[in-house]
């Protein structure tokens, strides 16, 4: 195998591969990227056995072939090469070495046989549909903060992507929760997506997927089966196993009957929460919200570190209410709001609170209060 490729193109392709590779793994081949050159393209394939990414790039292929080499090392080398350099990769199968040449630099890397590289079994996808990158970006960006890290509830360690009934018809919906807060984000249902089985997309896959979604113009092809999900652009294909579990019935959790409505500028609110939380104890980060007519008083009282209070003008016309929250959770949901005011719907100080942006129900957040 021998091919030449522009440094910038190579960096991008290898970067995606090396981020999938697990840093600490006991199987040497899994640290490697499988490089396959034929025709005018070279593909770079990496896997951690749960996720597989294949990145195709244009190159001048002199001799077709394939090999595997350490993804991290190759990425480090290419990253350090000067911008605009033409990089030539030559595989010497006899010596088990891959030569990387650029200008006057020359590297020789140990390879492992491509036959040992585990290629993810292909799957029959029940549903394939196309969705614009910005739509998927919104669905996952606004929900991923609520993914649980608790391994005993493994079925919460991802984003539940499924088809549901929204306020205005069928929607493509992403839900994540850790039991303390929940995010439910809807998008118009893409054509052909109706029959999609609901899948829990693992946290790591959500992180890898994000790199495919930066281009506003891109159309992403999404393929879903009971066990796998695939996201593809013309050059990158990300395939992932989904979490084998049942996502809990979240609809019971979303309070529909909360009547006490508070509207507040999300930016001001987040800044105030952040300021008063400065004195809260590192561990609990509890903030108290005291509401009366058109006035919100945020306060923190931490016996061993101090106290803080801040007043905000809000729109509120219900009875007085005092309710406590974890400051981090409030900040996270407030920062999801980017266009309009944040609307909070409270019930009592012990019940879940709902938050949305203006009257837009296509993105709602639920947060559990805490005793203060």
């Amino acid at each position, binding site marked *: 195998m021998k091919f030449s490729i522009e440094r910038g193109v190579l960096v991008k392709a290898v970067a995606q591969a090396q981020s999938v590779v697990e840093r600490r793994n006991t199987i040497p081949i899994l640290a490697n990227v499988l490089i396959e050159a034929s025709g005018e393209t070279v593909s770079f394939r990496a896997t951690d056995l749960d996720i597989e990414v294949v990145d195709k790039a244009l190159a001048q292929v002199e001799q077709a072939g394939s090999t595997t080499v350490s993804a991290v090392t190759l990425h480090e080398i290419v990253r350090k090469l000067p911008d605009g350099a033409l990089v030539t990769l030559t595989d010497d199968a006899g010596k088990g070495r891959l030569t990387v040449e650029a200008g006057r630099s020359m590297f020789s890397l140990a390879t492992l046989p491509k036959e040992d590289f585990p290629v993810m079994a292909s799957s029959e996808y029940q549903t394939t549909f196309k969705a614009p990158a910005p739509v998927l970006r919104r669905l996952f960006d606004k929900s991923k903060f609520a993914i649980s890290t*608790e391994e*005993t*509830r493994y079925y919460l360690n991802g984003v539940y992507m499924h088809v549901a009934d929204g306020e205005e018809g069928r929607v493509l919906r992403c839900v994540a*929760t850790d*039991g303390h807060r*929940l995010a439910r984000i809807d998008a118009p249902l893409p054509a052909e997506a109706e029959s999609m089985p609901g899948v829990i997309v693992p946290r790591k896959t959500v992180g890898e997927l994000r790199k495919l979604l930066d281009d506003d113009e891109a159309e992403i092809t999404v393929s879903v089966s009971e066990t796998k999900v695939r996201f593809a652009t013309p050059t990158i294909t990300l395939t992932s196993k989904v979490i084998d579990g049942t996502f809990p019935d979240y609809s019971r959790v979303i309070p529909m009957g909360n009547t006490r409505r508070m509207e507040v500028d999300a930016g001001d609110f987040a800044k105030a929460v952040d300021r008063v939380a400065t004195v809260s104890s590192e*561990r609990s980060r509890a903030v108290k919200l005291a509401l009366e007519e058109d006035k919100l008083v945020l306060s923190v009282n931490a016996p061993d570190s101090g106290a803080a209070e801040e007043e905000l003008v809000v729109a509120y016309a219900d009875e007085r209410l005092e309710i*406590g929250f974890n400051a981090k959770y409030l900040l996270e949901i407030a920062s999801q709001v980017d266009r309009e005011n944040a609307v909070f719907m409270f019930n009592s100080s012990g019940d879940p609170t709902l938050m949305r942006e203006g009257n837009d129900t296509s993105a709602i957040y639920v947060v*559990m209060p805490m*005793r203060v």
Partner: protein
Amino acid sequence: MPALCRNCLHEFESGARCPKCRSPRVVAHDELWDLGIAHMDCDAFYASVEKRDRPELAAKPVIIGGGRRGVVSTACYVARIRGVRSAMPMFKALELCPDAVVIKPRMEVYAEVSRIIRARMEELTPAVEPLSLDEAFMDLRGTARLHGAPPAVLLARLVRGMKDELGITGSIGLSHNKFLAKIASEVDKPNGFAVIGRAETSDFLRDKDVSIIWGVGGATKEALDRAGIRTISDLLRWDEAELVARFGSMGLRLFHLARGQDTREVKPDRGLKSVSNETTFDEDISDIDLLDGHLWRMAEKVSGRAKAKGIAGRTVTLKLKRADFRLLTRRVTLTDPTQYADKLYRAARGLLDHAVDQGPFRLIGVGLGDLLDESGADRSGDLLDPDAEKRARAERATDAIRQKFGADAIIKGRALR
């Protein structure tokens, strides 16, 4: 030389017997009235409590320890003469001492006696640092005027009172820092009173083995051995920089402790690190339902102790020992710290479900760690488990009933497995 009769607390100027009551139990030392850091260590504590409660055992060898496969927790002095030691496997102890009376530990009783002793120490000084149920440091400096007597007299009075009123003997080590006080309490055991003054500190330490130093266990001892350091006097030949270069922060400690220098304060609240409970089975268990019963009972015990202490924990640890003695520990961090048995049990059960296929097990244990005050715990509900609040209320009601009618008044069916 100042002297004190441990029998009648008479203070006098030297002599082998007390001039007042003729008792030979005299402690005499040049610095006797000047030293204020003490270590009190009860003698064969668990065994002493059992002998106190069952006087017919007084002259018999008594071993406290659990079950057929357990280890010796405490051996009374009669059993110790026969070679029985703490942490020895029970079968071996019984080989050495076949006529021993083996008693299962009654931790609640020992804890109660310990509380009484602690309260007595706290009458003398607020600076009491318990190391376990049966030993504690006390800083008695500056209390002489308050009590109208120097620390040595207070300590002699303390152990005399423990013996007369509680039936428990203890040994006192009195010195000028914690390190030496702890060593001193071992010198004259049992029912002893030993003093290490400033003047003889270096003479006293010189020929002692390095393992006398707190923190020098197997690995450090080996490392010291390789460096040719076996006794304290070997250590004295090294300068500070060399020791630090070779042994890191431990080197610094070795340097100072070898010279009898220890600046650690007696800290009243040493800060509990974790609350845990474990049990060794009579026969190895792999059945999840049987394990589950043990798990629940231990969760209740741990939770009960946390509630009694007014604390809660953020991490739950499950400990399993396999039949081949390999230890598995699994830990989970809770988003909301807890002191409830229910939440503790559920978290541990989640861990057990993942590990159960590695059984059978000979031991199971549950612990609550990363502790904090209970006011910071159980503050937030679980969206996905709306019944959790109901169960928490049931647990509080159960606790109230038990408080009134005893621990067996109400139990969960799960506890019977």
